[in-house]
């Protein structure tokens, strides 16, 4: 008996490069990954992008009359715009017409839509975004949770994030006993604001907790899971992105500075470009919203077609490895 193909609902209207890059990525995902895709969005915008109208094997089209903008209030948009591509994607997962959803649009609205349509995992108060951060020295990743889903957090919620992040690292990153660190402004237990201090005492009961970590521990594999609130997490991610871009500009500026450097650059630049691919957000594969009762992958706002393929790949792997089910079991077990 063959394995049933997984259907991933893709929000064709979400993201800076929607719908063109999103649709192209969805089509590539069908041919490269062996999944089916439910493209959700405005028919008149999507159909011209399909090579043969809507009759593409493995691709179904669902019309959605509304679009959630990047600047809209997340909760209000998710509630009011029930005919939006975003809400319809979440609804498709809820109704079992898709096993996962991928969106590159408004992150907060994606979280709200997934939460309202799919529901919450029992025992989890707030969803959180688990973002893989590359560790350059090897092939492994470090997880940052929360990457921006829940801005104002309680210590209890951060402790829940730690448990979810640990289970996700176990399932998706194949780490047997993931270690956990709380992002703070110093390693000592007493460091941090009130939120960090109170969270620290709760995390001491979480298996694998290694204490506080600092910003410099990111991308160094000091711990497998870095826990923080969504406000800090989002700033961390954007800071890393900006710093990496500046570092790349610096290096390539040097390699272009003198005739000798240019000669060296002919040898070194290709190697550097290959190595730097690990930092390419389009290749990271999207972040997973943990804590909702379904698979929801969030790709970055300027996602290219390649980013969408990788986000669909993450969604596929999450379904195949039963991430949500294992998360529920883990939370139930305490």
């Amino acid at each position: 008996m063959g394995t049933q193909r997984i259907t991933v609902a893709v929000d064709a209207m979400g993201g800076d490069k929607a719908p063109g890059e999103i649709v192209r990525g969805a089509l590539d995902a069908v041919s490269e990954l062996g999944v089916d895709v439910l493209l959700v969005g405005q028919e008149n915008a999507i159909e011209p992008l399909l090579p043969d109208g809507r009759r593409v094997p493995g691709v179904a089209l669902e019309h959605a009359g509304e679009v959630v903008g990047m600047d809209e209030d997340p909760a209000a948009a998710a509630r009011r715009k029930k005919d939006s591509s975003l809400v319809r994607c979440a609804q498709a997962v809820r109704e079992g017409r898709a096993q996962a959803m991928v969106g590159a649009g408004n992150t907060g609205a994606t979280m709200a839509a997934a939460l309202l349509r799919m529901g919450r995992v029992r025992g989890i108060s707030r969803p959180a975004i688990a973002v893989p951060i590359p560790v350059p020295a090897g092939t492994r990743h470090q997880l940052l949770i929360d990457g921006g889903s829940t801005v104002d957090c309680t210590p209890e919620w951060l402790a829940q994030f730690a448990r979810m992040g640990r289970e996700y690292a176990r399932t998706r990153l194949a780490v047997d006993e993931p270690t956990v660190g709380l992002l703070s402004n110093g390693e000592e237990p007493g460091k941090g604001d009130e939120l960090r201090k109170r969270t620290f005492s709760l995390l001491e009961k979480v298996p694998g907790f290694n204490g506080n970590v600092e910003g410099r521990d990111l991308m160094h594999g000091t711990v497998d899971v870095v826990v923080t609130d969504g406000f800090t997490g989002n700033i961390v991610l954007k800071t890393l992105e900006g710093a990496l871009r500046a570092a790349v500009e610096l290096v390539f500026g040097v390699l272009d500075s003198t005739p000798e450097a240019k000669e060296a650059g002919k040898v070194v630049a290709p190697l550097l470009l290959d190595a730097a691919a690990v930092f390419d957000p389009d290749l990271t594969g999207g972040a997973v919203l943990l804590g909702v009762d379904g698979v929801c992958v969030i790709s970055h706002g300027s996602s290219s077609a390649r980013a969408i393929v990788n986000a669909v790949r993450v969604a596929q792997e999450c379904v195949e490895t039963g991430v949500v089910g294992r998360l529920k079991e883990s939370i139930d077990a305490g």
Partner: protein
Amino acid sequence: MPAETHVAQGPIGPDEVYRILRERLAEILEIDEDRIKLESSFTQDLDADSLALIELVEALEEELGERTVGLRIDAEDLGDLGTVQEAVDYVVARLGS
């Protein structure tokens, strides 16, 4: 033909709204229903934040919408609902409007 309202299983009174609200809110907040009383304040007594209230409204629309077609609770009104009693009154008024 009148508008699509009050169709299914007879009118829904305040007691029924309160019962449904308690049940759904207890599920969302993962607390015992006994903790939820008419005079309970959403924020001070039940620690229900804005997202929890939105979940509640969605749940009420879904459940009551099956029995009263077209029930819609405005998101803008959520901020004014301080207590369970106020929420019950609001929903009952909506059902009757």
